[in-house]
């Protein structure tokens, strides 16, 4: 997508993203994947909405719920899924796993520690300033991550040095079982930008077009040298916190309603039809193509070998050490 993606493009991307995560989830069911796999089903509008704004030179630092961000940043699907499946052909040869994704070529990394993504993104923004480039740094966190000290320290430093940083908050209403509105004091996340004299805005992250426009504005602001932008995108976590989470702390009715009214893919689909930009047939084809693509991808990954055990002992240091 070199020209600006259309809504149909974004719909296709979101559909592929969801299908990608379906084949991630399959690994839990099949026993291939251990640990806590965090999916972003329901949050595709945000990842897909960044595409077209992000440039190859931009850096992104994400969280435990990062697969869609990786896709948005251009990380190739095979090594991505292979890493999630802890295969030798994975991004990190299976040593990082699904919460620790690194792709230096596509300028993407993650951390499993909440809040810790933000200072790392700050470092990329500082580097961009040092280099005099127009690269942007995007640091992603959830609503829960805004309660960490790292959120405060990052925004303050980005603001005093006017660094090209977008702090993107995916507010999916919950940090595991804890509702955002019970643990975030004051007028809300976006409003906290004012404390740092920063650009701040809340947008509906289930509306991929609205989000895209807001993200473009945030990115322009940050790239312009005017300091950081804090963009809060509302969305919903359709699944448990991780695959296997019983999710007993949310009422079934509220969950059903959230899926019915807050699905970014359904919203885009309705809008495409309403606007006459696509019909059911095209949309159905997109869905089945995506499913097929990901089924093939999964098959390829499953066929790929696990890492050689000797790899367990290297990469602690650049060269072995006693």
């Amino acid at each position, binding site marked *: 997508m070199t020209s600006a993606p259309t809504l149909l493009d974004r719909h296709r991307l979101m559909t592929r993203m969801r299908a990608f995560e379906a084949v991630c989830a399959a690994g839990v069911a099949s026993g291939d994947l*251990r*640990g*806590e796999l965090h999916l972003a089903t329901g949050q595709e509008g945000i990842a897909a909405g960044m595409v077209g704004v992000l440039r190859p030179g931009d850096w992104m630092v994400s969280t435990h719920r990062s697969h869609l961000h990786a896709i948005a940043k251009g990380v190739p699907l095979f090594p991505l899924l292979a890493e999630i499946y*802890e*295969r030798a052909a994975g991004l*990190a040869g*299976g*040593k*990082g*796993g*699904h*919460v*620790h994704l690194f792709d230096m070529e596509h300028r993407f990394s993650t*951390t*499993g*520690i*909440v*809040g810790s993504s933000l200072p790392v993104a700050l470092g990329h923004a500082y580097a961009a300033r040092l280099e005099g480039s127009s690269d942007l740094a995007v640091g992603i966190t959830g609503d*829960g*991550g805004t*309660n*960490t*000290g790292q959120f405060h320290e990052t925004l303050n430093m980005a603001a005093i040095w006017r660094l090209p940083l977008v702090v993107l908050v995916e507010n999916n209403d919950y*940090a*595991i*079982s*804890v509702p955002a509105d*019970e*643990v*975030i004091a004051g007028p809300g996340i976006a409003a906290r930008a004012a404390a740092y004299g920063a650009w701040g805005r809340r947008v509906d992250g289930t509306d991929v077009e609205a989000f895209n426009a807001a993200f473009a504005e945030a990115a322009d602001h940050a790239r312009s040298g005017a300091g950081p932008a804090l963009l809060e995108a509302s969305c919903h976590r359709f699944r448990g916190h991780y695959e296997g989470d019983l999710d*007993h*702390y949310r009422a079934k009715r509220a969950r059903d309603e959230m899926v019915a009214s807050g699905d970014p893919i359904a919203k885009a689909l309705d809008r495409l039809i309403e606007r006459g930009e696509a019909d059911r047939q095209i949309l159905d084809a997109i869905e089945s193509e995506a499913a097929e693509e990901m089924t093939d991808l999964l098959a390829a990954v499953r066929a790929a070998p*696990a*890492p050689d*055990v000797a*790899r*367990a*002992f290297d990469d*602690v240091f650049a060269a072995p050490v006693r």
Partner: protein
Amino acid sequence: MSLRANANVSELIAATMELELARDPRTLLLGEDVGYSGGTFGASRRLFREYGEWRVRDTPISEMGFTGMAVGLALSGWRPIVELMFVDFIGVCLEQVYNAIAKNRYMSGGMVGMPITIRAAGGCIGVAAQHSQTLWGMLAHLPGLKVVAPSNPYDYKGLLAASIEDDDPVVFIEHKDAYLRPIRAFPLGAEVPDERYTVALGQAAIVRPGSDITVATLSTMVVRSLAAADTLAGEGLDVEVVDLRTVVPLDHDTVVGSVARTGRLLVVDEDYHSFGLSGELLARTFEALGPGGLRGARRLAVPDVPIPAAKSLEDVVIPSVAAIAAACRSLALDAGR
């Protein structure tokens, strides 16, 4: 307290805290998801309903803030239990743990106690480098902290009660592998009385007597070491297994007493190999017995690498039953039968 017949260790931990909250009205529990949902691992189920949000507090993701809050609560006369979810997250709040909680009694000349229990999950169950550590060696290095890591249901209950009752800070490390394991599936300590009891901190247990080799270990590695000992028994090697139970206080006397009989020490540790528990225990044993008493010693621990994600790799860095057995065999060979 009475548990379901099929109860697992996470339920046992919740029931243990329930007894403590009931017994001492100055006790309270703080942490992410400990309240309404009953804990990410279910280890505080029911407590929120019974004791309400002020004594069972769901916190924001602000570990430094709520760990420091525990310091103020303790100064005010309360006895906080702080849940950190994964012990790996202690890097976010070590400052309050080691510069305040661990040192306040000393820095105040004994005026102030810090009866704080920090509960956290440790150990490996396939969640890679940032969620699989045990870190007890790191924590034990810092004076002023007691460090506890039980191996079996009886001890989970008794050591946790003792930790909460203790007037000093305790880091209580629960093995993730234990949470969902039914109590009755444990090879030892599967009989858990309903009533409250404590297991004293600082007393190791000889969980399997033997005469050829002493294996000193703790937490889930006790179970693996027992399995290895069973295998070796069939080969004519009689292994004594010592469950250390607590890293601080470290009951080296029991280990030394055992090695005085066997002459050989293997330390099995799920923490990193160097600069931690295994070296310390080897050193203390040598210091106690001298070159005449310690014929051979070996360590089996995570070989100074972060924990890899892939199971194939994890399996070779975490001591397995086979690796424990192999280490015993070669120790027996080296340091003559």
